[in-house]
């Protein structure tokens, strides 16, 4: 029971990341009709927003180390600590939350820039060409990041206050051995909040409703005199923000490196397909579902029955779903058929 509960939790935070990326992919696909292979790279760029932020916050000066007296020793101390003392260190400690705030405008800008300068010229072109050009864009983005940050993963830590693990087992009457890292719990909550945010935006604001109407029938909405294209630009930006935030938040869980985006992209596409192309709810459900499945299949008990299953489970599920339910779990009729 304990193990199962833990595996579900483990799967949920990974599933949260899948769901957030898949949500953006679906949003872009549903509104703009564009298959965006650069979406994983956007996630990665988000993660590197946090890295950049950390680099900026820890710009350091060489100061003489007073604790060493018998020769001149220097240590690197961030200016923030020099200027603000304890407050400064606290700011550095809180780099991830700060990056979240900073990355929102950055990712929005990046998304809008991408849409206006590249993606919009591909609305009318074939899906194959969309895949190819965004694939090229993904390579460019990841290579740029590699040029600036190198090829090695860069660890970023969460604020100290949430460094440990939550004794989640004792809260709900399971054994005390069931503990779960605070940050992963926060990640889970965070993804739920973002997902609900996106859904409320689409369902309860007029702006969002127009976008949804545009997803269903673009021509009619345009006939009503609404500049749907501008809204779609914003939607692209929004999708970029969601993916970027997912990336920022994921940094304490997995140190980001430049090809992280590609790894997540493939998985997220699988998630989108399983959920059903064009279905936002499907994307979210499939994200969590596959996260949990993956975490269950990596249990040693399971692996001893079917060796290697943890490596392929997600793809296997995708293959089975595509063959038996071509529209995925919740796909709409007529989307991406033919």
């Amino acid at each position, binding site marked *: 029971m304990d193990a199962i509960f833990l595996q579900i939790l483990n799967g949920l935070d990974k599933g949260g990341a899948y769901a957030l990326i898949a949500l953006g992919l679906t949003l872009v696909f549903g509104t703009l009709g564009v298959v965006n292979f650069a979406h994983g790279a956007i996630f990665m760029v988000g993660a590197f927003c946090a890295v950049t932020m950390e680099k900026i916050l820890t710009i350091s000066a060489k100061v003489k180390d007073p604790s060493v007296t018998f020769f001149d020793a220097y240590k690197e101390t961030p200016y923030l600590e020099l200027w603000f003392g304890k407050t400064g260190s606290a700011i550095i400690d809180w780099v991830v939350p700060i990056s979240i705030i900073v990355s929102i405008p950055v990712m929005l800008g990046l998304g809008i820039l991408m849409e206006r300068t590249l993606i919009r010229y591909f609305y009318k072109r074939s899906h194959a060409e969309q895949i190819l050009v965004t694939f090229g864009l993904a390579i*460019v983005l990841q290579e740029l990041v590699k040029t600036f940050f190198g090829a090695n993963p860069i660890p970023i830590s969460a604020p100290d206050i949430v460094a440990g693990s939550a004794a989640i087992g004792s809260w709900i009457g399971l054994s005390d051995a069931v503990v779960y890292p605070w940050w992963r719990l926060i990640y889970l909550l965070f993804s739920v909040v973002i997902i609900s945010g996106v859904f409320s935006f689409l369902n309860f604001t007029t702006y969002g409703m127009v976008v949804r109407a545009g997803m269903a029938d673009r021509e009619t909405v345009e006939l009503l005199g609404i500049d749907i294209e501008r809204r779609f630009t914003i939607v692209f930006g929004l999708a970029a923000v969601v993916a970027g935030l997912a990336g920022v938040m994921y940094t304490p869980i997995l140190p980001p490196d430049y090809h992280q985006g590609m790894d997540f992209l493939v998985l997220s596409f699988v998630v989108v397909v399983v959920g059903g192309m064009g279905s936002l709810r499907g994307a979210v459900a499939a994200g969590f579902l596959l996260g949990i499945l993956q975490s269950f299949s990596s249990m040693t008990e399971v692996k001893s029955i079917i060796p290697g299953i943890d490596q392929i489970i997600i793809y296997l599920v995708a293959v089975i779903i595509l063959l038996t339910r071509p529209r995925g779990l919740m796909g709409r009729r007529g989307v991406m058929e033919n």
Partner: protein
Amino acid sequence: MSNTQIATPRQELLYMVVLSAVVLTMPLWLQPFGAAYPDLMQKFMIFGIFAIGYNILFGLTGYLSFGHAAFLGVGSYTAVWSFKLLSMNVVPAIIFATLLAGLFAWLIGFVSLRRSGIYFSILTLAFAQMSYNLAYSVLTPITNGETGLQLNQADPRVIDRMAGIEATSGLPNTNLFGLEGTGYTGFYICAIILIVAFFISMRIFHSPFGMKLRAIKSNQTRMSYTGYNTRPYLLTAFIISGMYAGLAGSLLAMTDPLAGAERMQWTASGEVVLMTIFGGAGTLIGPLLGTGIIKYLENIFSAFNDSVLHNMFSFLPDWLNDILTAIISPFVGEGWQLLLGIVFMLIVIFLPGGLMEGYGKISRMIRDRRQKPADDGSSDTQHSTGEV
């Protein structure tokens, strides 16, 4: 070189003669480019074969597969196992690798081709990732995991031992009945196989079968109302292209008998897509052209570094030299992939038909200008596929 005309046997002969001459004299005419060394020329040939095969699927049918690196990997592993178990002779290695890759392609194609468009792409991607992940984990006894599968002096090599060939000292070399599989002879083996591979692809392009594949790409609905069962056509094309990939994989193993799983990653599949599109998908020569140019530039640019750049611009004033070096250096050496990505994007944006389309456009422009300056432009063949 137009695809819209029906090629005559004389034209086919001409292609073969020209291609053979160009390929076989490579060691001569690549001298001035500094690319006439065997390793690089072998790569041209091997990836050329890979791209020619990929083009039979993508170029003719329009089905975008992201899984072909898996077949390349299967070919490499099979070839190395053949070297280990049977013989260092490349003939059994090539035959087994091609057949096994074909078998894999049959299995994966049979499932993937039940869907089309982006679903097909994602299915092939999923299969490729599965193979890659498995090669690294449970299949380690076959693939030797991260280390990669290598030769060993103590390998059985049953056929070689029966023939009384014993590795004397160190690792044995791959060979084709005594001709070494590496160096210049290795290149010529690859070159001759490439010529045969091109010939087969040309025959497919110029056969009714090839025309039907183009028709499937153009309008699959019409194909089925015209009485064709499209799936066996697609599956055949998929298997053929998979076998080409397996063949290329076995040749990689011939020139360097080491097989690693990284060859199977989907970004490696992306590379063959790139080479095919760069030259011109759906044209005969395009994939070869794309492979040659990309592999050549990769070779040049990835060797550059800051000091090479500094030397290159040493005739300039120092400050200008520094600026230029700073601007260019992110795109060379390690950063070559960045340049490749940018070039690739530019090609897809402006020349989706690849270099061959560019060539066609320019030659048409010149011809039009020469013939009649005031043409009504009715020869314009730009159009959309008009599919729903």
